[in-house]
């Protein structure tokens, strides 16, 4: 039955009327996409759209810690968040977190992609090795780093002590994850570590899409390697670079497991980004937590738009 309808839909689309029953058939055919797309739409509606609606509703509700709805809150959930003294610190930290993690990731990935684009024996295995942090769950990776930074036994301190960068390695060894600023640096390093494989692969795919004859021509012209890279490779890599950067911006902004597993956000949120803050609010006041989630939504959109704007601007200037 669906076969007939399909065949009919095809022949009915372009031409004028050929059969008297066409309107009925056509009407049936217009429902056909729903048959194929319906399950996907239903799943998206249940898992994505419904929670968005619920979240918006919740952000205007007054819900006590026991989960009982005490009524409408108006905008008070939002105003309470904006009046919260910890908010400015969290926003600044979030910005530093996103900008430095994504910036370093993009920079290092450019080098890694250039490296792994070269031919050398065993390249396949080396590429397999660098996907490890991508395949593993981020929370497991974060816990490994927490363990490697464990005070007076972590292997990172041990190594730094052996190469002479840390003078003491004993009970007095400083606990890096206990000091907010140093901990942030460590966590940003972990964020870069887990973002590198994906980004490198995106850039590798971009590099391989560049036709080889362009390099041939540059070589004939006698361009130096660095000049070729700067004037040919980088501009042609731009689309892949932008896609990688935008996906990373969203991933790093939304990153929760790294901070959660390494410091749980610290005392008084002094090591929390806005995502961790939102999660933590859930147990205290779910209405405020929903409001924070909506603020995060807006933040992510603003960050991505600013990034794309700045990039277009740079591009025009370069021309």
């Amino acid at each position, binding site marked *: 039955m669906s076969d007939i309808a*399909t*065949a009919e839909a095809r022949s009915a689309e372009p031409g004028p009327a050929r059969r008297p029953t066409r309107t009925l058939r056509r009407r049936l055919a217009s429902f056909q*996409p729903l*048959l*194929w*797309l319906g*399950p*996907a*739409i239903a*799943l*998206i509606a249940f*898992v*994505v759209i419904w*929670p968005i*609606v*619920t*979240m918006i509703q919740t952000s205007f509700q007054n819900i006590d810690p026991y989960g009982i709805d005490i009524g409408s809150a108006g905008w008070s959930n939002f105003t309470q968040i904006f009046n919260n003294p910890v908010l400015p610190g969290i926003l600044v930290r979030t910005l530093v977190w996103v900008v430095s993690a994504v910036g370093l990731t993009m920079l290092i990935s450019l080098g*890694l992609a250039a*490296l*792994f*684009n*070269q031919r*050398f024996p065993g390249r396949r295995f080396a*590429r*397999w090795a660098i*996907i490890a*942090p991508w*395949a*593993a*769950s*981020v*929370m*497991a990776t974060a816990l*490994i780093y927490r*363990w*490697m930074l464990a005070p*007076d*036994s972590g292997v990172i301190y*041990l190594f730094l002590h052996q190469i002479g960068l840390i003078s003491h390695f004993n009970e007095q060894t400083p606990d890096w994850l206990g000091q907010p600023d140093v901990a942030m640096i460590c966590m940003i390093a972990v964020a870069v*570590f887990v973002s590198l494989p*994906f980004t490198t692969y*995106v850039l590798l*795919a971009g*590099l*391989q899409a560049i036709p080889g004859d362009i*390099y*041939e021509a540059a070589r004939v012209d006698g361009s130096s390697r660095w000049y070729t890279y700067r004037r040919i490779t980088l501009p042609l890599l731009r689309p892949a670079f932008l*896609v990688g950067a935008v*996906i990373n911006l*969203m991933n790093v902004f*939304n*990153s*929760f497991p790294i901070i959660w*597993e390494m410091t749980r956000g610290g005392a008084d949120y002094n090591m929390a980004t806005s*995502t961790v803050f939102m*999660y933590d609010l*859930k147990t205290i006041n779910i209405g405020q*937590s*929903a409001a924070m*989630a909506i603020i995060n939504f807006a933040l992510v959109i603003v960050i991505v738009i600013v990034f794309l704007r700045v990039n277009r601007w740079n591009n025009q200037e370069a021309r």
Partner: protein
Amino acid sequence: MAVRTPARPQASPQSAPARAPRRLPSLKTAIIAAVAYIMAVIFVLPYLEMLITAVRPSNQLYARNYLPTHFAWSNLTDMWGSAYGILSSLRVSIEIALGATILVLLVSLPAAYYTARRRFRGRGLFLILVLATQMLQPVALIIGIYKQFLDVGLLNLNPVWGLILVNGGFNLAFSIWILNAYISSIPVELEEAAMVDGHSRLGAMFRITLPLAMPGIVTALIFTFIAAWNEFISALVLTNGNDSPLTVRIDSFVGAYQIDWQHLFGASVVATIPVFILFALIEGRVVGGLTAGSIK
């Protein structure tokens, strides 16, 4: 029209079309290889430390050395005791990952096939909807998901079903993109030829198109399995105790007064090693699915 072989939607990094402009001198190759190997080792070392810690004897847990004097292999056997709950969490992880994978296959295959083969009203709108979900992550919606499940009562019913739905929904986009790209690259003439030979349209789809799209299907399945297996925040919010998958179980070790690092990493080994092997199988094709929506 000349015979066209189905092109792969995204050049795999393995296929290396970048023709080296000239033969590199061997010393240069050696240096490049050496640097690349060092990078490779840096990426793997943390996971090696995970393995080593998992088999450290408990009295040498905090010893200041890279390797303990001997390995306590018994850590890997006694961690299956019911006190740690790793076995029950492993079962939950498998249920969630398999369930989400099957759900994604059933839902994304018809959608990808139809959008690849037909032009119809609402097609663009549907693809934008899919792209929008790809931009979202469970973390961004977690409060809504939690509240929704609380309201629906799915939380008390069976969190595993809820997590199958959540993981299925958030991995749908990747699957639709990659399958759409594969199916689009298969000439429709092949299907038409099969229909001339007497197959129905569905028969042609099952006998001709789907076998040719198999690499894409396998990639979509493995990717979904891994993503659902590794998923952390919705499982953290929606489950606890024996209902929780491995990621949440591992996290619960951290909440304890004294962190039992050996068994924590024992569980991590169980959670990580299968994923490494699965991921290596699809490594070259994943980027295409993750970036397809944004490039087109």
